[in-house]
C-alpha cells in the first residue's frame, strides 16, 4: 500500500503526463481524422486504429522510419471498416511494418478510390499493378515519365447500358477454328479455359499478335477521329517470370502496342488481387482515347486464389471451396468493364455518349464526331482434371459471352489449337462475323457433330454407308483444316477460301457420285483440274445450283456491315442468299464442259473479295 505522500506524487505525475499529451497532440501537424497507427500486422494484413474518416478501397500510406532516420512510404488499401479499427492490405515491403507505426491517408487520396499513376511512357513495358516498371533484364534502360501522369482509379463502375454499342465487329484472331466457328467480336468477353499445358496462354498470345499485326478495325463513322492502332494488355497474374519473359519477347518482336501488367508467383496476394483491376483501368484509359483494346487476364484462377487468401486473412466467412461469398461479384464487376461503347469527340477529347445521341446524330447525318471503341476481354481459367464444373470456372463461364475450351485429349493427339468445338461456344453467334464468313461457316458445327456421331460407329468397327463415309471424310477435312501451328496465323480471306474449298470438296463428292464418274478424293490437286463433266442436255445452271443449293442457301439479313451486292439474291423471307455468287462465277454461258473446278473456285474467291 502506498503512503499518502506517494499517492499525491502519483496524482501529480499522472496530471503532468496527461497535460503534456494533450498539448503535443493539439499542436501536431497531422490531420487527426485521416491518421492512425498500426496495432497489429500479420500475413500482409494490418489492423489500423485511429482513422476516423476511412472508406473502403482507399489508399493508405505507412510511414516507416528506417535506421538512418530516413522515411520509407509503403502503400496499402482499406478492405474492412469496423467500429474500432480498419483492416488493410499492404503492397510492398511487409518486413518493415511494425506495431505503432503512423498511417495516413494523404490529401490527394482522401476523396478518390485507390488510384495508380499511369503515363504513356509505359507502353511496351512490363509494369507491376502500381505502375512501377519491372525490369526483365538488368540491362534495360530506365523509363522516363512521358507527359502527364494520369491518376487512374482501379475500380470504377462499368459503362452504362445506354452508352454501350452492340458487339458486331469481328476481331480476326487468325485461328481458323475461332474465326469460323467461335467468332470473337470487339467488346466481347471470351473465356479461354482448359487444363494445365493445353496452350491457353499460347492461344491468347497468338490472337493478340495476329489481330495487332493483320487485323482490321472498321468503323463506318468518325473515321478521321478513330485511332486504328490497337492496344494489347497482357495481365500476368501470379506468373513465373520466365513465362512473362517469353511472352514479352513475342509481343515486342511483333511490333504491336502492348503493356504487360505483371505480378510474379512470389508477389504478395494483395498485389495479385489488384492486378487485373489495375490492368483494366489502363485498358479503359486507352479505350477512352478512341482505341480498340484487347486485354488478356492470365489467369483468373490465380486471381481467385489470391482473393481467397486475402479474404481468409481478413476473417471473412469462407464458402464453397473456401472462396469468400463475393467471389462471383469480384469477377463480374471486373469483366463487366469490358464492352463496346459509343464515344463523342468534344474538341478536347472523347466522352461516353448514349445510343440515343448517336441515333439522333445519325438521322441528321452528323456522325463525324461519333465513334465506337471497345475493350475485348480474354480471361483465362485453368481447370483441374478437365473439371469444367468447378466453382470458379462455372462462375466465369456464366459471366463471359462464350468460352473456348481446350481439351487435353486433343492436345495429346497433337492437335493445336486443342479447341473442343462441341464444348466451346460464342454466345454472339454470327453477329460478330461479316456476311460471307457467316454464310460459309453456318453449318460447320452441325457437320462436326454428325462427324463425331459417325465416328462412334466406326470405332466399334461397324460398316458405314456411303453417306456416313462422306460425312466422316468431310469432318476429317474440317478437323485437319482447324489444325495450325503456334503463331502461324491465317488471314480472313484465307480462312474463307479454305472453308469454301472444303465445302467444294463435299459438293464434288456428291457431284461425281451422282454423275457416275470415277473419282479419287485422295488426289485433290488432280481432281480440281478435271473438267466439270456436265452432260449434254442438262441445264448447267440448274444442275450445279441444285447441287450447290445445300450449302449456299444460308440466309443473311441486311445489316449495317452487310449490304448485298449483285452477287446476292433476295429470298422470300427477306434474307439474302449467296448462290447468285456461284452462278455469277460459274459463268456457265460459255462451254461448261471445258471448265475445271479450279477455275470455278478462283471465280468464287474473286466474288468473296468483292
Amino acid at each position: 500500500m502506498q503512503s499518502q505522500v506517494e499517492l499525491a506524487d502519483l496524482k501529480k505525475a499522472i496530471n503532468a503526463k496527461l497535460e503534456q499529451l494533450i498539448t503535443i497532440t493539439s499542436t501536431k501537424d497531422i490531420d487527426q481524422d485521416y491518421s492512425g497507427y498500426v496495432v497489429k500486422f500479420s500475413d500482409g494484413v494490418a489492423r489500423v486504429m485511429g482513422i476516423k474518416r476511412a472508406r473502403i478501397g482507399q489508399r493508405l500510406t505507412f510511414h516507416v522510419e528506417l535506421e538512418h532516420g530516413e522515411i520509407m512510404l509503403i502503400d496499402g488499401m482499406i478492405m474492412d471498416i469496423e467500429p474500432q479499427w480498419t483492416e488493410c492490405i499492404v503492397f510492398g515491403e511487409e518486413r518493415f511494418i511494425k506495431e505503432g507505426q503512423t498511417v495516413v491517408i494523404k490529401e490527394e487520396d482522401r476523396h478518390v478510390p485507390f488510384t495508380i499513376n499511369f503515363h504513356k511512357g509505359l507502353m511496351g513495358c512490363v509494369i507491376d499493378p502500381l505502375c512501377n516498371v519491372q525490369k526483365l533484364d538488368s540491362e534495360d534502360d530506365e523509363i522516363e515519365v512521358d507527359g502527364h501522369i494520369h491518376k487512374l482509379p482501379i475500380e470504377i463502375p462499368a459503362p452504362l447500358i445506354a452508352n454501350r454499342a452492340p458487339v458486331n465487329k469481328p476481331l480476326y484472331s487468325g485461328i481458323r477454328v475461332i474465326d469460323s466457328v467461335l467468332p470473337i467480336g470487339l467488346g466481347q468477353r471470351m473465356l479461354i479455359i482448359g487444363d494445365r499445358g493445353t496452350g491457353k496462354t499460347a492461344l491468347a498470345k497468338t490472337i493478340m499478335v495476329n489481330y495487332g499485326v493483320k487485323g482490321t478495325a472498321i468503323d463506318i463513322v468518325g473515321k478521321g477521329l478513330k485511332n486504328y492502332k490497337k492496344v494489347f494488355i497482357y495481365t500476368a497474374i501470379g506468373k513465373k517470370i520466365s513465362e512473362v519473359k517469353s511472352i514479352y519477347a513475342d509481343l515486342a518482336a511483333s511490333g504491336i502496342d502492348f503493356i504487360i501488367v505483371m505480378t510474379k508467383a512470389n508477389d504478395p496476394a494483395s498485389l495479385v488481387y489488384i492486378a487485373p483491376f489495375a490492368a483494366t483501368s489502363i485498358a479503359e484509359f486507352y479505350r477512352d482515347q478512341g482505341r480498340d483494346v484487347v486485354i488478356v487476364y492470365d489467369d483468373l484462377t490465380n486471381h481467385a486464389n489470391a482473393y481467397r487468401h486475402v479474404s481468409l486473412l481478413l476473417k471473412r466467412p469462407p464458402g464453397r471451396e473456401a472462396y469468400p461469398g463475393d467471389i462471383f461479384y469480384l469477377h463480374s464487376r471486373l469483366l463487366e468493364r469490358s464492352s463496346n461503347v459509343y464515344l463523342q469527340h468534344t474538341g478536347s477529347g472523347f466522352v461516353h455518349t448514349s445510343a440515343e445521341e448517336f441515333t439522333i446524330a445519325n438521322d441528321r447525318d452528323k456522325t463525324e464526331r461519333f465513334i465506337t471503341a471497345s475493350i475485348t476481354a480474354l480471361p483465362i481459367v485453368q481447370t483441374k482434371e478437365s473439371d469444367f464444373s468447378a466453382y470458379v470456372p462455372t462462375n466465369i463461364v456464366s459471366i463471359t459471352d462464350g468460352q473456348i475450351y481446350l481439351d487435353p485429349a486433343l492436345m495429346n493427339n497433337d492437335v493445336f489449337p486443342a479447341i473442343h468445338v462441341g464444348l466451346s461456344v460464342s454466345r454472339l453467334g454470327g453477329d460478330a462475323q461479316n456476311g460471307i464468313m457467316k454464310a460459309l461457316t453456318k453449318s460447320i458445327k452441325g457437320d462436326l457433330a454428325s462427324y463425331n456421331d459417325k465416328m462412334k460407329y466406326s470405332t466399334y468397327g461397324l460398316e458405314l454407308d456411303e453417306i456416313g463415309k462422306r460425312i466422316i471424310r468431310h469432318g476429317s477435312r474440317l478437323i485437319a483444316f482447324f489444325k495450325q501451328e503456334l503463331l502461324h496465323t491465317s488471314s480472313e480471306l484465307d480462312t474463307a477460301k479454305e472453308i469454301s474449298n472444303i465445302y467444294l470438296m463435299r459438293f464434288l463428292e456428291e457431284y461425281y457420285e451422282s454423275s457416275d464418274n470415277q473419282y479419287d478424293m485422295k488426289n485433290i490437286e488432280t481432281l480440281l483440274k478435271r473438267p466439270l463433266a456436265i452432260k449434254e442436255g442438262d441445264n448447267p445452271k440448274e444442275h450445279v445450283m441444285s447441287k450447290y443449293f445445300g450449302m449456299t442457301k444460308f440466309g443473311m439479313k441486311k445489316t449495317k456491315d452487310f449490304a448485298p451486292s449483285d452477287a446476292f439474291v433476295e429470298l422470300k423471307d427477306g434474307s439474302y442468299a449467296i448462290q447468285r455468287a456461284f452462278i455469277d462465277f460459274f459463268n456457265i454461258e460459255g462451254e461448261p464442259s471445258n471448265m475445271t473446278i479450279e477455275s470455278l473456285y478462283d471465280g468464287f474467291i474473286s466474288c468473296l473479295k468483292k
Partner: protein
Amino acid sequence: MIGIREYISIIGELSSHYELSADTIISDLIALDTIGTHFLQSGIQDLIDSNSRKEFLKIVETAIETELLKEFVKELVNREELISGLLKECSLITEHLTEIKVDLSQYQIVTDQEFDKLLAILQKKHSHRFMIVTVGLPDGNTITKYLNTFKHTGEYKAQLSELDTLLSLYMEVNSGE
C-alpha cells in the same frame, strides 16, 4: 488523436518509474478492459451520465489493485475532453497488449540462464509495450511472464549487461580465436 495507446504508454512509463510489478499492472489492465466491454455490452456507450460514471468508478475501485491505475482512471473521468470515448478506449486495451507464445518443448533441457536470455531478447525486440509471454517448457509445463518494456528496470538492465558479457564470451570461445 488521444486514445488507449497513449494512455497505456503513460501507465507503462509511470509504472516503470515507480517500479511497479508488471504482473499486477497487466492483470489490472485486462480487468479494466473487461469492465469497459461489460459497460458497452450492457448498452452504456459513454460516462457522460453521472449515474453510470459513479457505477463505473465504484467497480474500478474494487476490481483494480494498483493505485496508479485507479488514480489514472479517476483523472480521465474528471477530464471533460477525454471522458466521452473512455469506455470504448478501455474495451480496446487487450488489442494493445502483445501476446507472444514460445514453444521450447522440442529441446531436451532449458536452463534458467537460457530462459532469461530468451526474455531479454524478446524485450529488446519489442520495446515500449506490455507483453504477455507464454513459454512451453520441455517438461510439458508452461510459464507465463508479464513484461513491461516501456523502460527497462534496473533489475533487467543488470541481467541484460550480464547476458551481453556472457554472450560475447561465448562467441569468443566458440569462434576459435
